[in-house]
């Protein structure tokens, strides 16, 4: 299965993986903060490993273009996070500070998803091996995203189905962005290294700005470092083996 339809289906699968993050809350009301930290550390390793694949593929097509794309991807994430600061919205049953936290977590995840969708689409333009790697990395990364969303929404009175729903909604930009990104690099071939760089830059920045600092806050460094290193090596091995 290839073409835009395949890209859409894979990106939809990664989006559904976000809903899996709501499942542990079916048996437990709250989750140990360390569990989220371990999940984030594992996702960090996978995403770093996947980014190395993106950079390697990108520099094979053009070094400067890849780096320009990476800086663009980083700039996009910085801009998105700036734009989100200082909002005071209403969300579902809650208002004020609670609502703000809830909306913020869902919006942040949604914006991340835009970059991840672009990454998925672009990697399909570079071949199925890279696409498989990126799909797995993003799907695994989505599970703790769903966990994080549910951890914020559930104690504030949102139903379990609602939490799973919001988790999946936050990842819907993935299928929606993946298809146009794929079609774009397929038609405009010189854009491929820029796109690969963009995806790598956005993912590495996300790991460094969000996932790792949060993991360090909740769990011991040595354990976080080991988890990230092992997952990174696993991802590199996986890319060689495919």
């Amino acid at each position: 299965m290839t073409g835009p339809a395949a890209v859409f289906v894979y990106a939809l699968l990664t989006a559904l993986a976000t809903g899996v993050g709501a499942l542990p809350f079916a048996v437990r009301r709250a989750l140990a903060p360390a569990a989220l930290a371990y999940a984030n550390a594992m996702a960090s390793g996978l995403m770093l490993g996947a980014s190395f694949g993106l950079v390697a593929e990108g520099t094979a097509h053009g070094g400067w273009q890849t780096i320009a794309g990476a800086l663009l991807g980083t700039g996009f994430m910085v801009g998105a996070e700036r734009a989100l600061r200082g909002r005071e919205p209403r969300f579902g049953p809650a208002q004020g500070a609670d609502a703000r936290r809830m909306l913020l977590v869902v919006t942040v995840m949604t914006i991340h998803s835009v970059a991840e969708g672009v990454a998925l689409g672009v990697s399909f333009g570079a071949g199925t091996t890279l696409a498989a790697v990126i799909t797995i990395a993003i799907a695994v990364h989505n599970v703790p995203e769903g966990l994080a969303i549910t951890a914020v929404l559930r104690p504030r009175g949102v139903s379990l189905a609602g939490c799973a729903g919001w988790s999946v909604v936050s990842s819907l930009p993935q299928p929606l962005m993946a298809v146009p990104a794929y079609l774009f690099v397929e038609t405009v071939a010189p854009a491929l290294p820029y796109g690969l760089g963009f995806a790598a830059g956005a993912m590495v920045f996300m790991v460094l700005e969000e996932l790792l600092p949060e993991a360090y806050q909740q769990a011991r460094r040595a354990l976080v470092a080991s988890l990230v290193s092992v997952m990174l090596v696993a991802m590199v091995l996986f890319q060689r083996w495919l």
Partner: protein
Amino acid sequence: MLVNTLHAAPEGIAIGAAMAVDVPFGVFLALAIGAHNVPEGAVLAAILTSRGLDWGRAAGVAVAANLSQILLAVTTFAVVVESPALLPWALGTAAGALVYLVLSDLLPESYRQAGRTSIALVTVLAMAVLVLLGRELPRP
């Protein structure tokens, strides 16, 4: 100081193994590790001068702490040139140890001292520079 000496070990292995691959790659890695040693030396010197050592001595101690690097670099180079089958092992050991070092020490320390966004930006920029430098290397 003991911590610094321990850190210097995988860095020495990395330089030695990279030199055995070819000279430009070795120089490239030596430059990267050299850049990393500057803040390491600064931290150590800050501790030492605050305890009353003059800066010349502090610099001497900082260099001495990293001397194991030279020793290990030369040893690794010699061993790998003798038996090239060990090269991937040496490269892998160095890469694993360096990545772990970044994750267990450098990054958490940096997050404590400065904002996450600036740390993330500086790290991404440094990575970009190294990727570009690595590309410019003449490959055999």
